């Protein structure tokens, strides 16, 4: 008998623990928020992200966003970057080009800065949901010391429960199709050395969130 069969048989032969257990309430969000108040949600997202040491650049126009990004990149001349189609910032490719900044080939581990978009932003915890896919390499938000994420304000959802509810509405197959989805809450960190908090362990040490608060669509 295979190990699989032996294990499953053993589990099935046992008296079922918690057989009468009532199911948990799927509607209790861990962070209770007034989900209808958009302005408050945006403020919450910004406050939570900053509390995690993420830097927020609130930009009212694509030009402002380009400028903020170029300030973070300077004085480098190469960056890792997702395909521009996946970054909700019109004109980014031209702005980088004008500034003489080249997009490094995927797998270039020496670039200091990586630029991505995001699937969603969670107001409750100041987090970004980032899935992988063609043109959306995992490394771009992982290897460089500095991660720049571009997010539109309308991508902010209240919390993880709301994000999952939306996933479910769209059908979980789409979620499962992405090989990797990571919810990023601030720069990487450790407290393993005598409980001292240190930012920038293996992942990025700085997370810059460019929050695009404009009507322009990519």
């Amino acid at each position, binding site marked *: 008998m*295979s*190990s*699989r069969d032996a*294990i*499953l048989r*053993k*589990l099935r*032969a*046992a*008296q079922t*623990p*918690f057989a009468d*257990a*009532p199911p*948990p*309430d*799927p509607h*209790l969000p*861990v962070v209770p928020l007034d989900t209808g108040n958009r302005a408050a949600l945006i403020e919450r997202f910004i406050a*939570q992200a900053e509390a995690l040491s993420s830097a927020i650049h609130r930009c009212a126009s694509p030009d402002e966003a380009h400028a903020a990004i170029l300030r973070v990149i300077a004085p480098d001349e190469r960056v890792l970057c997702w395909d521009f189609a996946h970054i909700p910032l019109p004109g980014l490719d031209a702005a980088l080009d004008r500034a003489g900044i080249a997009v490094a080939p*995927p*797998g270039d*581990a020496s670039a200091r800065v990586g630029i991505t978009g995001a699937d969603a932003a969670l107001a409750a*915890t100041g*987090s970004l949901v980032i899935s*992988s*896919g*063609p043109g959306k*390499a995992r*490394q771009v938000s*992982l290897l460089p010391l500095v991660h720049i994420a571009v997010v539109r304000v309308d991508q902010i959802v209240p919390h*993880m*429960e709301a994000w*999952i509810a939306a*996933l*479910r509405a769209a059908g979980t197959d789409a979620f*499962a199709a*992405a*090989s*990797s*989805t*990571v*919810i*990023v*809450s*601030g720069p*990487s*960190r*450790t*407290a*393993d*050395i*005598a*409980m*001292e908090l*240190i930012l*920038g*362990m*293996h*992942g990025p040490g700085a997370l810059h969130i460019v929050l695009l608060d404009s009507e322009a669509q990519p």
Partner: protein
Amino acid sequence: MRSEAGRFVTAARQALTDTPLQDAVKRATDTAARKRDLAMFADGRDHGEALRQQAAAARHRALSQLPALLEQAEERLTANGATVLWATDDAEVCRHVQAIAARHNVQRVTKSKSMISEEVGLNDALIAAGIDVLETDLGEFIIQLAEEPPSHIVTPVIHKSKDAIRDLFVEKLGMPPTDDAQTMARFAREHLRAAFLSAEMGISGGNFIIAETGTLCLVTNEGNGRMVTTLPRVHVALVGIEKVVATLEDYALLTQVLPRSATGQALAVYTHMINGPRRPGENDGPEALYVILVDNGRSAIYETEYAEVLGCIRCGACMNACPIYEATGGHAYGWVYPGPIGAVITPLLTDLKEASPLPHASSLCGKCREVCPVDIDLPRMLLDLRRDLVNAGHTPPPWTVGIRAWSAVARSPRAFNAAARAAHIAQHALPQGRKLPLGPLGGWTASRNLPKVAAQPFRAWWAAREKARDRDEQS
């Protein structure tokens, strides 16, 4: 990993005299406990208690459906492109990983934290097969350098001071001496970067598997978990069979309760959901993803009244709250899991007799259950394990003889009274204020004075009063 739990009493005694250890453990656990309290109850006491109850319900639901959920998880993971393997014991886990390594010509492995890999002695097995293994979680990296086991399941190196870590880096890695923790961490980052980029295989644990979508979930802060599951061409995940959860909603609850309970974070820095190996058109991600579902004693626990303990989400809150853990640190517990959870699962996963001191390493204060995010009744299990030890005859005969004698006397008020009278007389002969060579009482009197048996017991006072009242009534 071989259990040294049988040596607990000696190890604990040594730990109690180790002042740097005492300071380090107390600082770490006090900090963690305080942060947990703030995070779990950030939206009020009632809300935090409701979260605990909901999290317990999610784990109970998963345990009640465990075989079906495992099959569903396997089916979904496989449909997502993962290869699912099953391992009944430690040897089989090692065989699987060695075979995968051979199949993919692996020479270097990078690992993110996996307690199961410690259980099964995986690192040694890989090294024996000529494969380099590098721990990348900073705490695990440090204990690997120090050749020690972890002393805490979340922060494995709380027993070491900053100075000790600095000295280790200087001696073993040639780091220029510094007292700045940031510089030390940056040094480790540089040192491990090359390994991340060159290893052919990454090995991780798994905090949860979501059965309905076939998703492997990792909760990390450093980024090494993402590194070892993204950069190498092969990723192997070791996951205990009890880690399966039913739905995305259950997962959302647990993946938020876990960091709150463990480190006081609303979410870990990286809440990572892996749905398969690299897809066509992707530029990174492993070509092959293996998920090894590990039993190693868990199905045996599932068959018993201790099944509830399989709900543990490995947050470490129990050991952060435990006064015994604070007094001894983790190594004294002798195996992979210390603290209250270790005191219960070490005997259950290894050997009851060998681990016999552990269920007694508790004053039953109950703080562990109070802080457990999934409400596991650990004190109950410690009591039941003590019963199991007695029933199996694994208690020292003098104790059994003593308790039996005591019980025979105690069930008779007359006999008990006579014994108390005798003690009252005998105690006058006992010097107070120093250690007495009186067997178990020697331990007490080493640092405590003995209580005095009263001249007139309560029952005698009562009887005298009743007699006086009867006399008064009659006169």
